[in-house]
């Protein structure tokens, strides 16, 4: 059963954002929660998508605290689609104002995690999201 596979996440700092504390801490806490995590460090969207493809990731986790979320977040989603990676869950976290949550979701980001989101919620939403995506993929197969 594919749903029992370990969830594979790649975590990347988005573009030029310098604040790596949150991304590294969340990456380690996802590992503690039983996921397989690859931390990429800072990458531009093209490289993030190339890694997603190479790693066979279930989840792409993006982190940014410097205001590029609305531009580069949707760009990652678009490039993933172009590579046929529609079944990859894309989540983004950082200092993202509440008013940007809806526009990000409209542009294909599956989950948006603002500051102070409890780890439990992040793990739960990623697990549920992957289950949904895998279910869909199995149904269409």
């Amino acid at each position, binding site marked *: 059963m594919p749903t029992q596979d370990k969830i594979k996440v790649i975590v990347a700092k988005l573009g*030029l954002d310098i604040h790596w504390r949150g991304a590294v801490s969340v990456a380690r806490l996802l590992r503690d929660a039983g996921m397989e995590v690859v931390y990429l*460090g800072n990458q531009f969207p093209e490289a993030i998508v190339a890694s997603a493809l190479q790693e066979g990731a279930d989840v792409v986790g993006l982190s940014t605290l*410097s205001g590029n979320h609305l531009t580069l977040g949707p760009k990652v989603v678009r490039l993933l689609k172009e590579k046929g990676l529609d079944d990859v869950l894309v989540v983004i976290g950082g200092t993202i104002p509440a*008013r940007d949550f809806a526009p990000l979701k409209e542009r294909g980001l599956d989950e948006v995690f603002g500051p102070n989101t409890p780890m439990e919620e992040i793990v739960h939403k990623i697990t549920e999201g992957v289950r949904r995506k895998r279910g869909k993929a199995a149904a269409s197969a």
Partner: protein
Amino acid sequence: MSEAEQRRPLFHSERIAEIQSQTQRWQQSCLSEADRRQEGTYVTASGIPVKLLYTPADIADLDYEQDLGFPGQPPYVRGVYPNMYRGRPFTMRQLTGFGSPEDLNRRIKFMLEHGGTGVNILFDMPTIRGYDSDAPQAEGNVGQCGTSVDSIEDIAAIFQDIPIDKVSASIVTHLPSTTTIIFCMYLAMAQERGIDPNLLAGTTQDDFIMETAVGSAPEVIPPRHSFRLQCDAVEFIRQQAPRWNPISYNGYNLREAGTDAVQEVGVAIANAIATLEELIRRGNDVDFIAPRLSFFWDLCNDFFEEIAKCRASRRVWYKIMRDRFRAKNPRSYLMRFHVQTAGISLPAIEPHNNIVRSTIQGLAAILGGAQSLHIDSYDEAFSVPTEEAALVSLRAQQIIQAETNIMNTVDPLAGSYFVEYLTNEMERRIFDYVAEIERMGGLVAAVDKGWLHRQIAETAYKQQKAIESGEMKVVGVNFLRSEAASAQPIDVFCYPEDTEEKQRAKLKKLRQSRDNHRVRSCLEEVRRRCQTGENVMPAVLEAVKARATLGEIHGIYRDVFGLWQFPLI
């Protein structure tokens, strides 16, 4: 004769012995079994055990003159100036940066019109990492989180109508590579305005750990080259602008990234030692360089530990300058520092509570003897501050200055058994941490090996786990959470939308109107100096005067020095 033999403790040893036995009797007769069991479980944020009660026995060896002295005199624990805030109130220096240079110019004027006494500016990520606004890497980041600077014209626009011969400017360039370029733009701009460089007062950040450890990036210059540029900038700026602090050793961002108070100060001091050794090796006198080295601390929530950190760091610096570098100029002994309150401590939930947190941290800065202060705004977790939030932060500083009377006397916590004990303990731990770094071959080697990155990641992870488990309490977030209060929306700053477009248009015009032949030959000279090891700054100054852009100059650094793989944790 050693220092220990000359010591003259303030307390008589017989009185200390009496107090010790009285303390034991008091513990036995007045404290409950539960009280006694709890002893040993309390620690400061950096892990120093805290007892229920401190007495003279905890500082039994205290020698007033040697350990504390008088303000403006060795060992400077009580402050760097004799009259401290009576003579010179702390500078109110609110960090500001977003949008275009013109947008920033308006915000600076707003803060000065409302009683701010210094300028403190921040750049966007492409500027900090050395890309022009029209570079593909800059996409989505232009004017976000800081102001965009591409050329000297942008620096001129930021400081338009600001009396830079009177108001000091802190320019938060972060990286040495960026400092070499932006300081030259500032100097050339001042010269074009006819201002004598001898009058320029201010600070550039210029810290190689910002380039290679504290901030991550897709393209990073190797630590030893970043350190070399750091030293190039310090040396050149000392020669050109005598009132300028060429470097601000950035404990702040290191702390925010994930370290404790001891690591914060230890790394900054290890970097200062490395800088002085390199510049002395180049033939400079320690007393020419050291008087303008400055420091930058993060004041977090552990109130007394932060005050002790400020006091202890002054004594550590004095001892290093006296014993290790044999400095003679009293100004070399002074550790002067700027404080910013802890952004990392400010949650998005119930944001108005952040005014309280920041004010308490700001108060600690003044009790710790800071030279200048930025108080973070309550909307820190959302974006750069709105004008309203920035004004509240400035007002908090003005209230501390004008209404609390705490500036009337110097170092009011001196002599507190606990504060002096903690000051001694911080000093000991900072010296140990500096020694640990030196055993690895110094800070540049420690960064190159990824050691500092591991220290940061480990502390950040531990702290996050403590928040997740509730062990570290954050009111309104994981402790006493109120769903109604946390749902209240606040105004959040909106970045101007047209910055990228405006900056691109300016760049296009600049590249058409300048003498491109002159730009090319200036850039070649920068390249040549990068290769030979000569100080790059004189060539960078000529290049920015010729209207070479930040990205063009930085591109040469990346090209000559190559890129370094930022250690992944």
